[in-house]
């Protein structure tokens, strides 16, 4: 059967509905004035000229948000800090009134009859600033004498986390035969979904209801944050969304602009729409990664790991984004020792505030930070000790028979078969044939390297159960409601296929509605690769609940006891007879009645799962130009059971190439002195293109997890969790023979060319961050 998704027809014909595609009668347009400097006191804001411009209806500043009772944007820490310390929360206003703390922070909002008129009026607002000194990197922010960003956050450290057993680690290091350490920088990147964020708000003055159309990964988190910020009661905030053009973590939180647009709609008495330009997206979307780290491993004489010790210093930007601390610490805590049998480990994570865009989730959300640290450290140990990197891993992998495994900080993995995953990847990548390929490349003057990463990640457990609801329409259609919002993950198809297979109905019968303001469900936004184990499990329960209802109706129709009724492939049958009635017929008879007997709400609660994999990358570097070419890439993943392998492969492709993007070029750069953002367009920020990855092989080695009904583990982020370390290990393997000993991402042609030249001149560390 040819592949196609239920969402495809509208999307390939241009009939999708993204935020900027909504229009309402009388709609007005908004534009924001943003700080043009990184740190400054606001002396005055003069909006007089702007208010007098043609078509201008409303101008908002901090005075207006204060009058409306707006509060600081919310933030929280998922676990207590070291010694039980609490997160020091910076006040984050919707519109800055006293101090601006990063270039791009919102200062004023103009509403006018057209978007162009609003933009023109923004340019007529005059702000007088008094510049303050800036702290542009985490290292600079925590240094003695650094400028202080917020009152009450001394030293710009919002919290420090510690996980693991520092005493056990210290003892292990003392008795170690070898100690290997490595400093790494995981550079700041901009997630850049292709749909720029936007918001359209409508206010109904008679009921007090707000309808807020936004790019969202799920309505529950978005609504809660808007309620916390605006003070509008929860029952009056309705999030509306249909198609969302990518998210990757950046569409989870309620950006300050969204609250401002709600207020603007109320004051203007008309729908107000704002759509960010790409320049605004670069200046105001949450950025991600930005972690400086040091890892140490202690080994015995045979190369067995005795302990890991990690220190992470996270650049959090000027404020703490709602999901920022989660991203910074949870993945590190969950997968502290990776796939290895390590008796002791500890990690320390410090969150520093800097004069830059707040940091939060981007595909992987911390998973590619810990996997990158561990897997590069393991390769460094292999190099330093002269042990083959595969052999070193094999010696230390958690054996399959030891599952379920309890990790050193008391958490654990339920299932996995790491040695088999490794073997499969070695076979598919023809690891053993590499030396011949290297020799052939060498004859052409090229540097060829192969790199491996054996990794594990923890998927999101979810803050609440996931509820789903089925509503049966009058024409046989079944509408499924869920919170977790699709922004490319093919939920519409995956949900329908899952229900269709259990209920024995064609998948075309099912429609999906996320973000329907008329249906309030508990549940979690899309994130942490959790939708299929969370919502998927709820759908499985839903299907069983529908079958149970059908069984009662079938028993009545067939005049039999319900205990005697079997259900198979859409048909209820009295066991051992040929007397039957189809689910479809029962739906037709009963679903449309006033009691809507088939309408069902079900839920499930799942915990984290542990997708894992082994990725092997092979690169070729032209030492004359510094260009890195990915020649082969093999990914073997244990994502548990796969529901739709084509969709799964698509998720892997996208995530691997996002990883390749960070490895080869993506880098969000601020000027260290002025705090201006230097990579604010697709001309300056190197997005991956079709040219980047060749010879991709995707394979699976499923070990179903016993922790949910479907045995699925999740697949959204594994590609990037594996590709950062696998690709960089390959690049280092190619560069070591010419004398490069250390190299930090990104491996742009200029940096690689420079590193080769510096190494030949005797400096193997020129392009290391630390």
């Amino acid at each position, binding site marked *: 059967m*040819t*592949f*196609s*998704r239920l*969402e*495809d*027809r509208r*999307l*390939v*014909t*241009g*009939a*999708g*509905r*993204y935020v*900027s*595609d909504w*229009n309402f009668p009388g709609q007005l347009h908004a534009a924001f004035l943003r700080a043009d400097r990184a740190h400054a006191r606001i002396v005055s804001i003069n909006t007089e000229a702007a208010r007098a411009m043609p078509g201008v209806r409303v101008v908002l500043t901090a005075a207006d948000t204060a009058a409306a009772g707006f509060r600081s944007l919310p933030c929280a820490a998922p676990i207590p800090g070291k010694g039980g310390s609490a997160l020091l929360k910076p006040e984050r206003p919707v519109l800055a009134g006293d101090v601006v703390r990063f270039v791009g922070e919102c200062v004023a909002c103009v509403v006018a009859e057209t978007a*162009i008129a609003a933009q023109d009026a923004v340019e007529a607002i005059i702000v007088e600033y008094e510049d303050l000194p800036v702290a542009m990197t985490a290292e600079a922010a925590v240094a003695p004498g650094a400028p202080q960003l917020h009152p009450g956050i001394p030293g710009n450290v919002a919290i420090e986390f510690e996980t693991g057993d520092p005493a056990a680690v210290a003892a292990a290091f003392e008795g170690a035969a070898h100690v290997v350490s490595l400093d790494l920088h995981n550079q700041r990147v901009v*997630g*850049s*979904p*292709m*749909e*720029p964020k936007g918001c359209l708000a409508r206010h109904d003055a008679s009921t007090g209801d707000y309808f807020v159309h936004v790019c969202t990964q799920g309505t529950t988190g978005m609504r809660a944050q808007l309620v916390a910020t605006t003070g509008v009661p929860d029952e009056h905030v309705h999030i509306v969304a249909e*198609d*969302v*053009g*990518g998210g*990757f973590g950046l569409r989870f939180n309620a950006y300050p602009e969204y609250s401002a647009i709600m207020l603007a709609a109320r004051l203007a008495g008309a729908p107000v729409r704002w*759509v960010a*330009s*790409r*320049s605004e997206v670069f200046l105001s979307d949450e950025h991600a990664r930005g972690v400086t780290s040091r890892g140490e491993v202690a080994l015995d004489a045979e190369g067995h790991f005795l302990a890991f010790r990690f220190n992470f210093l996270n650049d959090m930007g000027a404020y703490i984004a709602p999901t920022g601390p989660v991203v910074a610490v949870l993945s590190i805590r969950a997968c502290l020792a990776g796939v290895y049998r390590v008796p002791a480990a500890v990690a320390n994570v410090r969150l520093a505030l800097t004069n830059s865009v707040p940091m939060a989730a981007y595909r992987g959300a911390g998973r590619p930070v810990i996997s990158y640290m561990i897997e590069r450290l393991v390769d460094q140990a292999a190099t330093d000790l002269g042990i083959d990197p595969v052999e070193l891993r094999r010696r230390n992998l958690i054996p399959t028979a030891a599952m379920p495994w309890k990790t050193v900080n008391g958490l654990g993995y339920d299932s996995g078969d790491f040695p088999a995953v490794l073997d499969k990847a070695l076979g598919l990548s023809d690891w053993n044939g590499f030396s011949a390929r290297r020799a052939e490349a060498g004859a052409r003057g090229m540097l060829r390297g192969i790199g491996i990463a054996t990794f594990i990640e923890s998927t999101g457990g979810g803050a609440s159960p996931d509820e789903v609801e089925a509503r049966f329409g009058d024409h046989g259609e079944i509408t499924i409601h869920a919170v977790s919002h699709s*922004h*490319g*993950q*093919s939920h519409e198809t995956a949900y329908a296929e899952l229900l269709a297979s259990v209920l024995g109905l064609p998948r075309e019968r099912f429609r999906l509605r996320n973000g329907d303001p008329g249906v309030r469900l508990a549940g979690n936004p899309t994130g942490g690769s959790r939708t299929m184990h969370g919502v998927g499990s709820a759908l499985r329960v839903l299907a069983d609940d529908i079958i149970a209802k059908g069984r009662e109706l079938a028993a009545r129709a067939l005049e039999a006891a319900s205990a005697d009724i079997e259900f198979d492939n859409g048909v209820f049958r009295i066991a051992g007879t040929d007397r039957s009635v189809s689910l479809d017929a029962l739906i037709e008879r009963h679903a449309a009645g006033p009691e809507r007997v088939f309408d069902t709400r079900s839920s499930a609660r799942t915990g984290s799962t542990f997708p894992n994999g082994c990725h092997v990358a092979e690169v070729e570097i032209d030492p004359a130009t510094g260009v890195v070419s990915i020649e082969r890439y093999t990914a073997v993943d244990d994502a548990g059971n796969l529901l739709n392998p*084509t*969709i799964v*492969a*698509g998720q892997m*492709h*996208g*995530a*691997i*190439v*996002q990883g390749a993007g960070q490895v080869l070029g993506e880098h969000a750069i601020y000027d260290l002195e002025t705090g201006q953002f230097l990579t604010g*367009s*697709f*001309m300056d920020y190197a*997005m*991956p*293109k*079709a*040219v*980047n*990855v060749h010879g*991709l092989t995707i394979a699976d080695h499923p070990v179903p997890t016993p922790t949910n009904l479907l045995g699925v583990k999740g697949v959204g982020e594994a590609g990037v969790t594996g590709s950062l370390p696998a690709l960089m290990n390959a690049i280092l393997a190619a560069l070591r023979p010419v004398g490069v000993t250390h190299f930090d991402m990104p491996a742009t042609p200029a940096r690689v060319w420079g590193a080769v030249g510096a190494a030949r001149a005797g400096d193997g560390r020129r392009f290391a961050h630390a």
Partner: protein
Amino acid sequence: MSQVSLTVNGKAVSVDVEDRTLLSSVLRENLGLTGTHIGCDTSQCGACTVHLDGRVVKSCTVLAVQAAGSDVMTIEGLAPSHDPSGATLHPVQQAFSECHALQCGFCTPGMIMAVTGLLKDTPDPDEQQIIHGLEGNLCRCTGYVNIVKAVKQAASALRA
């Protein structure tokens, strides 16, 4: 203000616009053809790609007044241009769906319009020509793997 008359998806239209108005705004805001997307402000992403007198252009980089008198085709007009009954998709649209060459779909209309143009000029492209042909279009979701596959499949469907 200028009055601009043009043909869009086979229909004659006329709009009054400020001289600085972009073709993309006319399509989206004046004509309600929201399948043409805006993904950037520096002519890099290609989400806004349409055909102008049969040539592939980024509609965010053409002033509406420059398009006066021209014939524009947007994503909404592609399937009908292939099958006026509306029953079947254009082979490029079909190939994108069958090859899973779209995830969130935001880049997709622009990709499809660009590929349709590419295949008109280069009916049997090799891998390098496809990669080169996609240089002006960004996709954040698919890693381009299945887009390249879809171009190959569409090329052979169109040659058949």
